[in-house]
């Protein structure tokens, strides 16, 4: 199956609240030769309703998988939640015959059948594996200099490990390598792999507010000037909620949060406008403009 053409699964949260991820990811895809085909009949990935009915969550994920199978393409997602849900169900349905028979029983009602002939990949995996770090590196024309960033992978990109092929969940490397090609330096911080708490925001807001506050404090202590994310849910908590967290704890972080494709695009010479950097709630202009000018002058 093609490793440059994918069925593009957008999910719910990105078009609802986090458009800058989609805009910047599509820019990068176009520039590095990833061909994205729209899934016009796709539905929710299933994850959000898993707590109330697992069978429905699996059936919704399976319906999306069937759509991509009929397109003859592997799926590419941007959201960790969608990725985790679709990749896990895809693997379970391929390996567990009893589950496959049960789910195909549901799918028969809508004239679909799970065959198990595609893969599900996160954008970050596509960049690292299908495009490749070396090729991506060749696109970087304006690397950052002296920019220290903190990375946040997000749980559903890494766990549960037995269903996902994204590296050691206690010591992941793929995003770190991708950030390094932009010239930015990744700093370590305490409890780096801790969850942002975003998935329970509807049940208890204090959970993401408290957990992300811990992370913001630790990131600040480590001397990072920005945060890099790859999930719209985590991003929303770090970025949209940051002023709320500052107010709740009477603290000040002022940490801009960039999606990885925004960071990469800037290093590739794209304009902040093309990457929708202006849509971020914690403004990134000051840090980024300074660094880009510095990089330009040093390159000249």
């Amino acid at each position: 199956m093609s490793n440059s053409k994918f069925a593009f699964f957008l999910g719910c949260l990105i078009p609802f609240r986090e458009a800058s991820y989609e805009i910047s990811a599509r820019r990068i895809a176009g520039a590095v030769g990833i061909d994205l085909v729209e899934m016009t009949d796709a539905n929710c990935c299933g994850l959000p309703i898993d707590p109330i009915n697992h069978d429905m969550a699996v059936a919704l994920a399976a319906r999306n998988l069937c759509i991509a199978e009929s397109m003859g393409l592997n799926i590419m997602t941007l959201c960790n939640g969608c990725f985790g849900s679709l990749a896990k169900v895809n693997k379970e349905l391929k390996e567990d015959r009893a589950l496959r028979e049960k789910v195909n029983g549901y799918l028969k009602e809508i004239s679909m059948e799970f065959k198990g002939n595609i893969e599900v990949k996160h954008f970050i995996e596509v960049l690292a594996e299908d495009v490749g770090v070396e090729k991506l590196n060749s696109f970087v024309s304006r690397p950052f200099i002296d920019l220290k960033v903190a990375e946040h992978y997000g749980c559903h990109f890494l766990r549960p490990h037995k269903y996902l092929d994204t590296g050691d969940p206690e010591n992941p490397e793929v995003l770190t390598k991708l950030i390094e090609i932009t010239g930015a330096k990744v700093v370590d911080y305490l409890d780096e792999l801790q969850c942002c708490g975003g998935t329970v925001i509807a049940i208890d807001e204090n959970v993401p507010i408290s957990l992300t506050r811990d992370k913001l404090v630790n990131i600040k202590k480590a001397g990072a000037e920005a945060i890099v994310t790859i999930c719209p849910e985590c991003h929303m908590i770090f970025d949209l909620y940051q002023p709320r967290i500052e107010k709740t704890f009477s603290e000040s972080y002022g940490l801009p949060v960039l999606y990885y494709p925004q960071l990469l695009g800037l290093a590739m010479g794209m304009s902040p406008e093309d990457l929708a950097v202006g849509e971020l709630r914690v403004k990134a202009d000051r840090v980024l403009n300074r660094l880009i000018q510095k990089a330009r002058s040093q390159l000249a």
Partner: protein
Amino acid sequence: MTSEVKGGANEPIRIDTKFKNIVLKTPGGETLKICFQCGTCTSSCPIAKISDSYRPNQIIRLAQFGAKDKVLSSKTLWLCAACYTCVDRCPQGVEMESVIRTLKNLAAKEGYIPKIFKDLGLTVLETGFLYRIQQLRSKSREEKGLPTLPNPKIEDVKKLADKTGFAAIIGEESA
């Protein structure tokens, strides 16, 4: 955060000796019996770190004992963020998140379902997605040169909801 468990802290816990077997037979609940209470899950749990009441190992123990009402009516059950750290770290291979999800599914069946989940469920049934994306956003997508959003066949979603029992749980079963 309080657990608001049915009955006070000092009231005796009702035990349903068959409850354990129901969980064990439900897909996802099979590994309930192999937990030996080492506490790795709770010490790894980000929610337990900030909550006074959420302790995954205690939920498992109560379920093993058959404290059906106490477990299913507990609001703390819904605090699991599904980060899967406990799943990856359990030395005994307990599928912690799947067991807790199974308990949440059973709670929903018994009518213990947070309102927010009912609302989310209804939106999924009506739109196929988690959110109602307003016309305004669709227009701004057009202006930004982004493709039209997917528009799933709602009939498909409704049929799946009926067959899986999802519609019945959120009270929207079709006739």
